[in-house]
């Protein structure tokens, strides 16, 4: 017996499979991004045999350089990306500085978490309808306060400075950054740091900026970079809220990419590479500012000043977050009102009569995009869940966390402009005659779903008490049994939430569906974005609402199901439980 125990145990199928997971996952994320970028380089230099480009030339770049308004496009992407990221981060940090560890903090956290599930395009449509000249906001102010009998003459959305675009981005990125900070605060011992500083006489906001922020920022740096990359390169929010003559660079590039005139593909590839450069420039500018601030602030942190702009930060942090929650909620309420409106002349604040006519009319066309959205969302989420749980389980088998470079790779699809690498992938599709469609779209969505699922699940998976597995193993259970019968049930709640996050991300995807589905696969999001540029607010509102209902249902299920199961299980135990007051 003793001798048998000493022979090395060959790992079982389960263990070997799990050990493969990180490699498979990292490969699945790197390969498409690298191949996609490679796929635009050759066409950008004029080489794409499938379309007759068989010699290298700089013609695509000359064409790009002659595009009217190119400079404006570039500066729009750059400024909207950097300004919206800076504003979102500033709002989040001001708010945490003023309200960390207070009741307001918990309240806002509860209010903002569900808003995170609202897809970007639905939020953007809501904002457009709220703040447009004939939107809900100006109706509520007219004519009694503004004196407007006709919709006023200002350009929103689509103002030439990109202010509408920036406001839409800030509304969606602030909840994301706030939740990232909330996850990171305990990791940097924020509570203790704050207490140390306050017990030495530092007021809350000074204590936060001098003692907590230096530990917090490194932990949220990657999410911040992801926000900058997204904001400088996004397509759907920019189509809905951004200016149109000229549009932002990524929107222009996407139009070239999907233009029926195939000769524009060379120009599109050059544009995609340029976008890569613009996003890289945005990130580099941010990084430089980071370095500058870091060296400037070192002395400031130890100058002993204990009360700085306390009132201002409290006032700003509180009112900005309140305004944000108010705007997002008002946007959603406005959507609901438009969806049941029939006749709603300006400046009436309330549509009358209301009817479900638009909803009934939409049911005939909603069916197909609804089914596509569901099936793609389920498939991409399932795939991402298997890979992420596999990676995290591999971490516990190896008893060490993924390296920081592996984490960066997991973020890669969020840092590289999709308009660049996704388009490169379609070039390979064309070159090798691969079919565009459902499977390609699912794989494309998985690239974006996976990082968010990982973000959502990793902390709780790593924090699971290792003694549960050790106990299982000590009772003679093999790793596979420990995994299926101990870990998964214990992790059911966070796994459910991570799946809901993944599903919400998939539902909100626009560009991968358009590019990898070759424009033939309609989802609720692609339809909603397409409708938003038309004139039918009622139908657009119905699509946007349906689009945001799906992720909301996902979250309701993820949060409600475990509670329901507990309730069903508890009556059997009731007899054995001691009565408690």
């Amino acid at each position, binding site marked *: 017996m003793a001798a048998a125990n000493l022979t090395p145990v060959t790992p079982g199928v389960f263990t070997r499979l799990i050990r493969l997971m990180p490699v498979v996952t990292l490969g699945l994320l790197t390969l498409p991004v690298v191949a996609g970028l490679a796929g635009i380089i050759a066409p950008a230099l004029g080489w794409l045999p499938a379309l007759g480009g068989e010699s290298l030339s700089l013609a695509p770049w000359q064409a790009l350089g002659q595009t009217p308004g190119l400079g404006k496009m570039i500066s729009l992407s750059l400024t909207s990306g950097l300004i919206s990221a800076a504003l979102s981060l500033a709002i989040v940090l001001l708010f945490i500085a003023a309200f960390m560890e207070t009741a307001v903090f918990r309240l806002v956290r509860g209010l903002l978490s569900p808003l995170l599930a609202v897809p970007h395009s639905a939020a953007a449509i809501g904002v457009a309808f709220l703040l447009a000249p004939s939107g809900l906001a100006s109706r509520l102010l007219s004519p009694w306060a503004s004196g407007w009998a006709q919709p006023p003459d200002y350009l929103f959305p689509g103002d030439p400075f990109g202010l509408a675009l920036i406001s839409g981005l800030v509304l969606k990125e602030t909840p994301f950054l706030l939740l990232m900070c909330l996850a990171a605060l305990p990791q940097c011992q924020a509570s203790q740091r704050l*207490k*140390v*500083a*306050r*017990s*030495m006489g530092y*007021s809350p906001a000074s204590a936060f900026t001098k003692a907590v922020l230096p530990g917090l920022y490194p932990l949220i740096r990657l999410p911040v970079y992801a926000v900058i990359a997204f904001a400088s390169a996004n397509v759907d929010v920019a189509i809905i809220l951004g200016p149109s003559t000229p549009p932002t660079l990524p929107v222009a590039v996407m139009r070239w990419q999907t233009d029926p005139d195939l000769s524009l593909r060379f120009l599109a590839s050059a544009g995609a590479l340029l976008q890569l450069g613009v996003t890289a420039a945005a990130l580099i500018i941010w990084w430089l500012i980071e370095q500058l601030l870091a060296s400037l602030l070192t002395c400031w942190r130890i100058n*002993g000043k204990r009360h700085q702009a306390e009132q201002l930060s409290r006032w700003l942090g509180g009112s900005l977050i309140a305004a944000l929650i108010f705007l997002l909620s008002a946007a959603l309420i406005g959507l609901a009102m438009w969806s049941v409106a029939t006749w709603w002349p300006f400046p009436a604040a309330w549509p009358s009569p209301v009817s479900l006519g638009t909803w009934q009319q939409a049911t005939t066309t909603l069916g197909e995009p609804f089914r596509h959205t569901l099936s793609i969302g389920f498939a991409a989420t399932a795939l991402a869940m298997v890979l992420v749980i596999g990676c995290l389980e591999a971490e516990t088998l190896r008893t060490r966390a993924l390296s920081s470079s592996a984490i960066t790779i997991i973020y890669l699809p969020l840092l590289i402009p999709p308009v660049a690498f996704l388009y490169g992938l379609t070039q390979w599709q064309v070159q090798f005659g691969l079919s565009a469609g459902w499977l390609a779209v699912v794989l494309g969505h998985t690239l974006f779903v996976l990082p968010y699922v990982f973000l959502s699940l990793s902390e709780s998976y790593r924090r699971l008490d290792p003694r549960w597995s050790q106990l299982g193993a000590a009772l003679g259970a093999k790793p596979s049994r420990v995994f299926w019968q101990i870990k998964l049930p214990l992790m059911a709640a966070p796994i459910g939430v991570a799946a809901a996050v993944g599903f919400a991300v998939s539902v909100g995807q626009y560009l991968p569906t358009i590019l990898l589905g070759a424009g033939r696969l309609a989802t609720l999001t692609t339809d909603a974005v397409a409708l938003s540029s038309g004139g039918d607010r009622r139908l657009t509102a119905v699509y946007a609402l349906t689009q945001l209902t799906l992720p909301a249902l996902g979250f309701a299920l993820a949060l409600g199901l475990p509670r329901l199961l507990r309730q069903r299980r508890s009556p059997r135990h009731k007899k054995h439980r001691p009565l408690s007051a």
Partner: protein
Amino acid sequence: MFDPPTPDALILEQISIHQAERCLIALNTRIEPGEILTIMGPSGVGKSTLLAFLAGFLASTFSASGQVWLGNSEISALPAERRRLGLLFQDPLLFPHLSVGGNLAFGIPHGGSKRQRHAKAEQALADIGLTGFANRNPETLSGGQRARVALMRVLLAEPRAMLLDEPFSRLDAALREEIRQLVFKRARDKGLPTLLVTHDQADAKAAGGPVIELTTHKNAAGSDPCGV
């Protein structure tokens, strides 16, 4: 810069702390300048809750009544940062983003030139035998060195009383004695009223002041600390 504060007594007047109707602690006592009052009790009895209340960090799940005075000024209604109670935690909690000298400078009240502040931090390091450590990263320090720096950081902030939350419990036996003596000596030299919570008899003995023993509710069957 502040004048060196004249030592005042720390007065805990009719303090009681409740958690959901259940009374955790009731206390009515006075700590003279330079005196060290020890509060003893097993873990879970609410010693740290008492310190959190005094320092101004009581979690909202607790409710407390009573007043805390420093001499003639009532401090229990003040926010934590205006109470000027030097709090020493179980862990040294040196900020990893600052050097050893930076951690000390963080404690020094605002004012004076950069060079004066620097000199003050250097002097503090010399006082605890760590001359030349100013530019070191706190992570390169030993446990005992970190504990000493944490103490100096608190003292440089010119507190008017000291609250010690089992600051010796994580140190090994040989170091514990040394750090204990250092902390007590510094607090006495400055004439600070000091409150120490601990579960270690040796701490109480070394403090040499009055001792209050807290017991858990279950142990003291039927007795309600708030009813006394």
